[in-house]
């Protein structure tokens, strides 16, 4: 977007054209007490050189040279310069949500390819053009289940990402939707018996994440059967999309809510992300957001159109299926390019590396006296371990060694103190894992 500064004489000219003398007079309809009497509390203008220096300083705050074992919803994966090169093409980078969609054939085709990839990964029949992130996608999936079933209670796994649960609670706060949390077993997976006991005829959906927040992979089949048995839908959230390179797609789910950040989006300052909602075709009219479709023009040539826009807020107002229609087109494009570069084999290989390295890290950590695996369920690239002392203290020691330590599980699960959620991806080398394990061993050996 261009920034066009105005000179004082241009301002005067504009004011004169509409018949007022000053900016103050322009805003005179705003009552006196509501007008700001002092300048905005903002830093002053900077020269071009100063702006560049400012951003170089901010860029230097990035944790370059650090090795990270932090995941918990944001994952560090290899990215190709090809992705950035395509993202930075002006046609993609500067274009906004196409409201006159069909003139933007390139954007629509990119969205169509993204949807196709997301369907293949999730085992679902339709996927939307993306949403803000995994948390809003999960909430939208629940609202969709509510519309489809006409029921007002939802069973949510306590092992669903804590921030996803928080977003859902915010939406539910004034809508009348009742949320019931279901705990986890010693395996770290959702307690199926507790789900069965809580299922009643007013439950619209069972929401489970897989791999869940503790890293545990859920057994979705029995959960789907239980939910369907009482007329509820199964919503599966996927926070680590790369897991689908090796884990069976959640085809049993009625709605899949996914975070696609792992595909080509760097974890810089925690964003931006790209959410996805995928579902069965019969539910498509309650799916939030937009959908690009492939068709043929009057001469039989392939073309792309925006379908289902009739249910978006700029047409349907308060009856829209969602009030966040803006898709993350650029982020979705990054995911599309990234996945296309990897291909089916590459994706699987990358996933296998995550699995193998995480397994190795766990085995090495368990050699340290007092370090125990918390949950027995299979995991992908994240697992929970118990340390004999505070994870925060251990992390402080690790940071000195330029290692960003694991997530402090006790900070959001009071019942799980001294638990660390360790993430190991393909970006982590064997030497780095060994250095991390040595760092943990060293930190635990420090006198208190």
């Amino acid at each position, binding site marked *: 977007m261009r920034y066009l500064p105005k000179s004082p004489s241009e301002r005067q000219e504009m004011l004169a054209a509409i018949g007022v003398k000053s900016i103050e007079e322009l805003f005179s309809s705003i009552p006196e007490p509501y007008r700001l009497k002092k300048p905005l509390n903002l830093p002053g203008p900077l020269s071009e050189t100063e702006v560049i220096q400012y951003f170089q300083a901010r860029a230097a705050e990035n944790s370059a040279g650090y090795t990270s074992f932090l995941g918990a919803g944001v994952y560090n994966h290899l990215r190709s310069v090809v992705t950035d090169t395509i993202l930075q093409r002006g046609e993609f980078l500067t274009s906004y949500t196409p409201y006159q969609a069909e003139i933007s054939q390139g954007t629509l085709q990119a969205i169509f390819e993204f949807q196709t990839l997301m369907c293949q990964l999730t085992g679902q029949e339709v996927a939307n053009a993306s949403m803000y992130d995994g948390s809003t996608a999960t909430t939208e999936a629940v609202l969709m289940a509510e519309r489809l079933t006409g029921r007002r209670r939802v069973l949510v796994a306590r092992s669903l990402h804590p921030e996803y649960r928080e977003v859902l609670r915010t939406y539910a706060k004034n809508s009348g939707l009742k949320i019931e949390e279901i705990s986890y077993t010693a395996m770290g997976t959702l307690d199926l018996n507790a789900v069965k006991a809580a299922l009643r005829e007013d439950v619209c959906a069972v929401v489970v994440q897989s791999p869940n927040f503790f890293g545990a992979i859920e057994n979705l089949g029995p959960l789907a059967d239980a939910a369907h048995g009482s007329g509820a839908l199964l919503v599966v959230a996927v926070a680590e999309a790369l897991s689908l390179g090796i884990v069976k797609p959640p085809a049993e789910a009625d709605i899949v809510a996914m975070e696609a950040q792992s595909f080509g989006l760097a974890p810089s300052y925690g964003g931006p992300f790209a959410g996805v909602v995928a579902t069965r075709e019969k539910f498509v*009219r309650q799916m939030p957001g937009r959908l690009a479709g492939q068709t043929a023009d009057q001469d039989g040539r392939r073309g792309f159109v925006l379908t289902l826009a*009739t*249910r978006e807020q700029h*047409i*349907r107002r308060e*009856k829209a299926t969602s009030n966040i229609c803006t898709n993350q087109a650029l982020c979705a494009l990054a995911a599309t390019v990234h996945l296309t570069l990897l291909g089916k084999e590459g994706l699987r290989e990358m996933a296998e590396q995550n699995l193998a390295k995480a397994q190795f890290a766990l085995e090495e950590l368990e050699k340290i006296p007092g370090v125990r695996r918390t949950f027995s369920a299979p995991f992908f690239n994240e697992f929970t371990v118990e340390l004999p002392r505070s994870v925060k203290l251990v992390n402080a020691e690790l940071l000195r060694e330029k290692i960003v330590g694991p997530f402090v599980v006790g900070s959001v699960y009071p019942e799980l103190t001294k638990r660390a959620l360790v993430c190991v991806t393909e970006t982590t080398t064997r030497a780095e894992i060994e250095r991390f394990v040595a760092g943990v061993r060293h930190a635990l050996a420090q006198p208190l």
Partner: protein
Amino acid sequence: MAYPKQFRYTKEHEWVDAKDGNARIGITDYAQHELGDVVFVELPPAGKQLASGKTFGSVESVKAVSDIYAPVSGEVIEANAALQNKPELINTDPHGEGWLVKAKLANPAELNSLMDAAAYDAYIAEKQKEASA
């Protein structure tokens, strides 16, 4: 297209064809024309209660999704299953094959507050005059 004499009409462009306490309900030729090609219809299942003036479903055309308002109160006996695969019946035969639901009337006296064909014709003519003004 002529508006059938035995029907009653609403300002939201629904029609009711009532007989012996039961009624068929649909949208008028004017409504289908305004909507354009209908691509999907959402209808309530049998047993659902209709409340006069409240929405009970929606019609999706290529241009928009529009709510359908119940012209009278009652209970749905049947939804037109043919519309699931052939929603275009609403465009081709809005007053016949394109009916939406059959309902058992809760209060037949409500029919008296609706327009007859002549009044609806005049109402449409007024609308069209406004639109071309």
